């Protein structure tokens, strides 16, 4: 096995001459995004808010995954492990010690980062790359799933239910159903996660890890400690993903083994980034803006069947099937992701 090369497509390193203006542009965009997200809950109804929250959780997961797998070039197929650790740590600490979710969330992120770093260290130490790295992370996520199902203190397959306080409290992150804070909090978390991505991608460790992704041997020969720079990316990635998990538990008041560690969770971390564009700052967000509402939108179109008989014969499952076809089509025809392709096109036009 030659693991000197990662098998992820490379994203062309940004032209150094553009770097500073790029940073400014990115921060301006982030600011605009923050404003949009702040206003959005005021203008949409509750129903859409719940879709929005799900979309935001997807986006945070995607941003987290992208840090490690997009910028770091380590394709993780087991981000459910870190999402789940975040969710369970949050739920457990809130229930057992009545901690504030704000603190529990940070503890969960630190915990997930430690676990992720350990797993990544093992994999890198034994030179796993590409599909093998993906399978190893997948196996760890499955082990966490089985552990959660069997551990008494995590309530086995029952999962953990968070207590409902009955009064609104920012400190305990509990509000009346439909309170705008339920959108503002994940919006804030997403903006922070994106901010981390922007700054990290421009920082020295961030540039090193991208160099190591594009050519490990060259990077090492330039004196970059490849292992260490990669572990930094993993650490950030796991922490961000764990935050998404913690908020998931907090918003849904519940976390069980499947919700935390199921394979579909790992998939949900990957899909937004890939659809939007791997290794780009805005890709995961663009992807999440599509994935989050898409299933709901199709479902809405197909709802209200004329009579339940027809419904039984035909429509059950159609929404997911349509969603699947769209997924395939997007991956086939926009291989750099929607944002990546758009960005390329615009750059091309500019250069002409």
């Amino acid at each position, binding site marked *: 096995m030659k693991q000197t090369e990662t098998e992820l497509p490379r994203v062309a390193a940004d032209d150094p001459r553009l770097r500073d203006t790029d940073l400014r*542009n*990115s921060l*301006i*965009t982030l600011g*605009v*995004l923050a404003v949009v997200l702040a206003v959005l809950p005021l203008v*949409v*109804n*509750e*129903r*859409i808010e*719940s*879709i*929005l929250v*799900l*979309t935001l959780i997807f986006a945070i997961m995607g941003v987290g995954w992208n840090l490690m797998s997009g910028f770091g070039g380590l394709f993780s197929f087991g981000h459910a492990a870190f999402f789940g650790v975040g969710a369970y740590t949050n739920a457990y600490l809130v229930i057992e010690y009545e901690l504030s979710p704000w603190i529990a969330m940070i503890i969960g992120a630190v915990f997930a980062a430690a676990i992720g770093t350990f797993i990544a260290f093992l994999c890198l130490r034994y030179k796993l790359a590409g599909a093998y790295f993906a399978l190893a992370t997948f196996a760890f996520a499955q082990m966490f799933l089985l552990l959660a*199902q069997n551990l008494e203190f995590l309530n*086995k*397959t*029952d999962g953990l*239910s968070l*207590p*409902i306080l009955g009064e609104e409290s920012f400190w305990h992150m509990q509000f009346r*159903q*439909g309170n705008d804070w339920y959108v503002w909090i994940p919006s804030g978390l997403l903006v922070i996660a994106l901010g981390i991505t922007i700054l990290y991608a421009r920082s020295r460790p961030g540039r090193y890890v991208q160099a190591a992704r594009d050519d490990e041997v060259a990077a090492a020969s330039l004196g970059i400690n490849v292992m260490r720079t990669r572990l930094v990316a993993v650490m950030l990635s796991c922490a961000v993903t764990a935050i998404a998990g913690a908020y*998931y538990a907090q918003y*849904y*008041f*519940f976390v*069980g083994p*499947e*919700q935390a560690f199921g394979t*579909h969770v790992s998939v949900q971390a990957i899909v937004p980034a890939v659809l939007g564009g791997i290794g780009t*700052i*805005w890709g995961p*967000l*663009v992807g999440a*803006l599509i994935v989050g*509402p*898409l299933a*709901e*939108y199709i*479902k*809405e*179109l197909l*709802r209200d069947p004329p009579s*339940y*008989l027809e*419904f*039984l014969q035909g429509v*059950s*499952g159609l*929404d997911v099937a349509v969603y699947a076809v769209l997924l395939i089509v997007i991956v086939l025809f926009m291989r750099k992701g*929607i*944002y990546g392709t*758009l*960005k390329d096109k*615009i*750059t091309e036009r*500019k250069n002409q």
Partner: protein
Amino acid sequence: MQKKLSLASAAVASCVVLAACSGGGGGGGDEEIVIGAVHPLTGALAGEGALMSAGAKLAVEDINEAGGIECLDGAQLSLSTGDSQGTAATGQTEAQRLVDSGAVALIGTYQSDVTQNVASVAERAGVPLVIDVAVDDAILEQGYQNSFRIQPNASSMGEDGATALEGIFEEAGEELSTVSYIHIEGAFGESVFSAFEEKAAADGIDVNEVTYAAANFSDATQVVSRALSSDPDIVVVTGYYPDSLLIASALQQLGSEVDVYGIANGAFDNTSFPGDAGTAGDGILSANYHYNMQNERVEDIRSRFEEEAGEPMETAAVLSYQAVEVIAEALQESCDTDPGAVRDAIADIEVDDPLLAFDGPITFGENGENENATVIVTQIADGQIQQVFPEEFKTADLTFPTR
């Protein structure tokens, strides 16, 4: 600059999508009272979910045909369905959507984890949830004020199952000293089992526990031989449909002469089981909550259901029908379409002619559990499922021991 542009266009696009979503969202007209039903309509449990949804729909049609809610000037009911896809998060989003579209009450959801989530939505929104099927005790242990369960919970089924089993042995004049109990891993199997074991141990019966995991369960031979290795007087099985079917045929293949008794079993009282199992199903007993075959109303509903849906109406679908009836009766009692008022009415309700074989009318205790929910024992005889125990629900005589 290009980043801002593309981001802006993405934001615009998503706003369009979101706006389009909201367009179709509205519920029925003003005069219609909306009941929300959350069931797994896609995913692994889609088959059961679709039948339950159909059961609820039939109840709404029947009530409307009979003149709607009388005290509200014959207001008509309408059912809004939600698809949980078998996952807790989707179940919650769907429940929220139904509540936002003006549902006065919710029913659902078949799975315990999804129900737990929907119950938390109901609690925070102050809308009553009538649980048709969901077995886990934990759902109502949160002290929720807005959730009510019609079926017996896991531990009461375990306990009642043990009592009925002892009764059967006594009636047959046989001695019951050793039980081998095969159950699926996870909350459902474990809570039924531990309640059974507690009751059995108190009565001096030895219980040998054998567990299996639902994932990758494709061969029951080994599980069954573990169960038979302790030379039991009876094999008790708690599990879902496919695994119970495998267990029944493995018992036959191993030439077992021990009788089989299901508790809260997903297969043994299902109408397609005798056909699927063939001779392996003969004589199998099942203690479960069950629709009451002796009730003529049940017979009528089930035959009309089968005519329309083309599939037999199983107990789960009957429970969905029952859940809608409970809500309709609460609407009549409270004479109000405010969810809070409906909730209070459900808490005090007494439904006299339950469709299920229960000990008495449906009434809910402080904790939201139906106080008269219980199990009855059915047996497969000549490819038919018959009610055999206790005496008052009997449609055929108990054959025991069968082998």
